[in-house]
């Protein structure tokens, strides 16, 4: 579903150095690594928000390296959610549907289904500034999922949420993934989160893949547990 070949880019202090990775259709992988290792840059490169100096990005078998973000058909939950403050919750979620020219009935149906799935029916009329961290997180997820993307990129989606609520959201995401079968690349600092959600984990250190393996055995930074990147799936 997603294939990266020798991806390289520089973004200020952050960089990617020849990242090669393959994510199968319906697979859920976690990307871990220390701060500044290039995890967000990796997601932005896949999403098309960053022009890569070298390497190729394939999505659904097509080389999308030169495609603008709007052509890639990806769902993206950025760090800190980034909801539109000038729209209420309903319009935030409906935003990508309106862009696709969906009619009123279609929007209503998709909104109801997605809101029910994430348990946010009661939030639809609220201003985004009035949401708690967990509520805002669900709205950001709903906005990304409402168009049923085949690929979902999540950047530290639960970073600022209370641990108890975080675990609840893990279960919800896991259930959603089972139900809809999207392919996910999930950036996280938390090994427990990676283990709870992902079937494979990628350890990124200084812009390069250091390890790929089962999340349970993945160290915070290098060490035993995962296979070396060259020997792992790529």
């Amino acid at each position, binding site marked *: 579903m997603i294939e990266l070949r020798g991806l390289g880019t520089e973004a200020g202090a952050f960089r990617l150095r020849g990242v090669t990775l393959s994510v199968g259709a319906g697979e859920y992988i976690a990307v871990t690594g220390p701060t500044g290792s290039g995890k967000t840059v990796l997601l932005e490169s896949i999403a098309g928000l960053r022009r890569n100096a070298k390497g190729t990005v394939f999505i659904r078998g097509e080389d999308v390296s030169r495609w603008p973000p709007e052509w890639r058909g*990806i769902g993206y939950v950025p760090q800190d959610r980034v909801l539109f403050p000038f729209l209420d919750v309903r319009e935030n979620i409906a935003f990508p549907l309106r862009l696709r020219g969906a009619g009123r009935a279609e929007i209503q149906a998709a909104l109801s289904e997605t809101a029910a799935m994430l348990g946010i029916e009661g939030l639809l009329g609220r201003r985004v500034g009035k949401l708690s961290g967990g509520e805002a997180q669900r709205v950001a997820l709903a906005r990304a999922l409402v168009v049923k993307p085949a690929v979902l990129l999540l950047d530290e989606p639960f970073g600022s949420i209370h641990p108890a609520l975080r675990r609840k959201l893990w279960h919800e995401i896991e259930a959603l993934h089972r139900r809809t079968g999207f392919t996910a690349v999930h950036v996280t600092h938390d090994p427990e989160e990676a283990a709870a959600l992902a079937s494979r984990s990628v350890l990124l250190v200084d812009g390069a893949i250091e390890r790929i393996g089962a999340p349970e055995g993945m160290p915070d930074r290098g060490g035993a547990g995962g296979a070396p990147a060259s020997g792992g799936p790529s």
Partner: protein
Amino acid sequence: MFKAAAAGALALLGIYFGCLLASIAGAASPGRFLAVLGSGEVLFAIRLSVVCATLATLAAMAVALPAAWALSRLEFPGKNLVDTLLDLPIVVSPIALGAALLLFFGTAPGRFVEDRIAGFVFTWGGLVLAQFTVVAALAVRLLKSTFDSIDTRCEGIARVMGCTEFQAFRKVTLRLAWPGMTGAVLLTWARAVGEFGASVTLAGATAMKTETLPIAISLSFATADVEKAAAVVLVLVGIASAALLSLRLVIVAFRNRGLGDRA
């Protein structure tokens, strides 16, 4: 001690400007003020000032909006130089800008514009052009600050959701910039209403023809009509105060809607 000194400085400024205002208000009796306000000449000056400032502001915003976005979002060779040059019209004396415009209309391209397209020298069109020249850079500077303060991730997420670059600008950036843009329009307009130096140099000071409020003040002093000058100053202060008060109300309104931090 420091707090007291700072508060003292603030109070001193308040007293200083209060004295200035009081001296203007004391120069014209209420009866004379109302008579001047109702005179055809002053009503003409108010109308001309409002119309010219509005046209100059519209023209300035039309150019400044894309220019400010380009300066805020794009990287190109010579960007720092362009950014610095844009401050020139803000720091250079408006009379110098007016002189530059007048000299331009003495050149072959300037004469072509004047003869074949539109007359600017000693006309009300010249007032609009002079005001535009003075306020356009200010508009760019204000709008650039607005765009700089907007989280570019909002545009990015809009692109990933399906917006083209222009759609992201129209549907997301402009809506986030709305409070700042409103402030920029009001400040630009207020500055244009008060513009004198470039206007008088390019358009001249002809009563009932190119007589904006600042030019009316100048003409009144030239004929030693101090009461009329004071009354027109009060009108100008009133218009500027209304613009600034509107700006404050707009900021409060946007803040109440959760957009205040970007106002």
